């Protein structure tokens, strides 16, 4: 009798030994809305159960109801830290479907915008790693620079975060002198701040102790999860879409692929840090090599005719109406186009049945893939590590749901 009671007690207590901690949906360290149910033994995490769906907005279904040009603002909202890459990636996908030839100048301008976006993305990620280790000041220094990039976006398209920059076939307008000036200013000021930020953290033992060996993942596991981008490179695999499958003339530029050794937080931090330097060098190369030419390709079926023509010319007005109504013909078929997004391979799988909207559109969102590996990466580590791992993977809530 007593023995039975004791065993019962034992099993009850076995359950009781672990406590469950709800990390999220709103927690200062989740940087977005997603939840983790952590099974904890004291401070040690025994298991984790990630939950997504808190900001489910049915992107893919929404996109299947919209003409191609209207899908661009939707892509903004995936990885909102580097929205221009999403936009331009989508444009390139449609151009691939249509088989449009893009002028060199447009390609170079796109490279500039995309690299700026990559810088902001990595900058946010690394600054947030700093915050999660407790050093707020570096974060503020870096965010001033992000402001400069956003001012460049503002000069290009009129918006800052959800940029909706560019159109199918090129840009909606040419870069203004003011935009060039702002880019120049950014390229001049940013390295100084980057150096400061690196001096604050990179060789600081407190930071190194916190990040080295935390949230590591081997190259094999990372590959089998489908990691791409900085997180895979941190694990030591030099896979970069810009080099592996060059798009938008990335083959013209000379840059290295930084890699880490065992994919821990420090590796990811350093890889992102180095990629920012590389991005800056790419931007400089692109500016130096920038050819003359138009700022958009010749795609009369998709690129709106100039306004003065529309106001005055019947032909142009008809085209205008046709494009806005989304009634231009597209070829049937399916394309997959991938760009190196801020966070990894951002893929667009587009199936077209020739109608005004995509028949099926799937976004390959890297964060969605990273987040699957999260429980494995934090098992057995401490709560502080878990938070650092999360921010170093740069899981953007907008990319989790589609």
């Amino acid at each position, binding site marked *: 009798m007593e023995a039975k009671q004791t065993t019962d007690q034992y099993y009850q207590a076995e359950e*009781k030994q672990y*406590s469950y901690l709800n990390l999220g949906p709103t927690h200062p360290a989740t940087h977005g809305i997603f939840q983790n149910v952590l099974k904890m*033994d*004291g*401070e*040690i995490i025994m298991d984790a159960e990630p939950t997504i769906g808190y900001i489910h907005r049915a992107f893919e279904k929404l996109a299947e109801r919209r003409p191609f040009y209207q899908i661009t603002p939707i892509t903004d909202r995936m990885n909102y830290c580097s929205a221009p890459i999403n936009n331009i990636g989508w444009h390139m996908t449609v151009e691939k479907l249509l088989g449009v030839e893009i002028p060199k100048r447009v390609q170079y301008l796109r490279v500039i915008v995309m690299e700026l976006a990559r810088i902001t993305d990595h900058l946010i990620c690394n600054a947030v790693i700093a915050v999660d280790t407790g050093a707020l000041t570096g974060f503020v220094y870096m965010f001033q620079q992000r402001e400069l990039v956003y001012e460049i976006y503002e000069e290009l398209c009129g918006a800052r975060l959800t940029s909706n920059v560019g159109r199918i076939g090129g840009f909606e307008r040419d870069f203004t002198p003011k935009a060039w000036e702002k880019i120049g200013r950014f390229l001049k000021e940013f390295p100084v701040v980057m150096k400061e930020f690196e001096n604050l953290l990179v060789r600081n033992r407190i930071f190194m102790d916190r990040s080295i060996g935390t949230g590591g993942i081997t190259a094999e596991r990372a590959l089998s999860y489908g990691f791409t981008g900085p997180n895979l490179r941190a694990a030591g695999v030099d896979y970069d879409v810009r080099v592996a499958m060059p798009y938008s003339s990335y083959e013209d530029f000379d840059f290295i692929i930084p890699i880490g050794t065992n994919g821990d937080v420090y590796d990811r931090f350093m890889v992102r840090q180095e990629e920012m330097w590389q991005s800056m060098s790419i931007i400089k190369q692109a500016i130096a090599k920038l050819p003359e030419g138009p700022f958009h390709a010749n795609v009369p079926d998709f690129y709106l005719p100039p306004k003065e023509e529309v106001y005055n010319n019947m032909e142009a007005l008809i085209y205008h109406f046709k494009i806005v109504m989304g009634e231009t013909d597209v070829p049937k078929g399916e394309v997959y186009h991938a760009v190196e997004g801020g966070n990894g391979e951002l893929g667009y799988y587009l199936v077209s049945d020739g109608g005004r909207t995509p028949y099926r559109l799937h976004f390959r969102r890297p964060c969605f893939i990273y987040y699957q590996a999260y429980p494995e990466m934090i098992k*057995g580590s401490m709560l502080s590590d878990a938070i650092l791992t999360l921010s170093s993977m740069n899981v953007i809530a907008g990319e989790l749901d589609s």
Partner: protein
Amino acid sequence: MTINLFYFLSFVAVFSALLVVFSKNPVYSVLYLIITFFAIAGHYVLLNAEFLAAVHVIVYAGAIMVLFLYVIMMLNLNTETEPHKSNLLKFAAAICAGLLMIVLVGSLKGSELLQSPVMVHDVGLVKNLGKVLFTDFLLPFEIASVLLLAAMVGAVMLGKSEKPPANETKTSK
């Protein structure tokens, strides 16, 4: 003045000691015990043992009771975890304690005749205490340090689990 202080401190000590025993929640027990310790530290001050009073507060209230509280929090004990005890046992406990009390009363009867032979009370000062400690009691002092070391090692050994390193128990002092 002093005698009133004595009565007050004694009342606090006894009252909270009773509450240590009778409160259901172990956390309350710990807190009442801390109050008891403060009262006893007050008594030490009354007895011209300031140094001991300070050490008492630091060691007992500052370290040992924090350790207790730490363990209770870590194990997450509360009122419900207190196992039920039959009334018979409680009754027996009260009887035993009462008997002990009677024995003590018997043995202490007549102690009021004791009077202090000296009027100077300066042994409580750090200097005097240190002299005695490091001359007459040097060997016990060293042995005590070895004991503490052994206790520390033992506690760390016990606290280390075979499972992935969980909560390390740190010794105080």
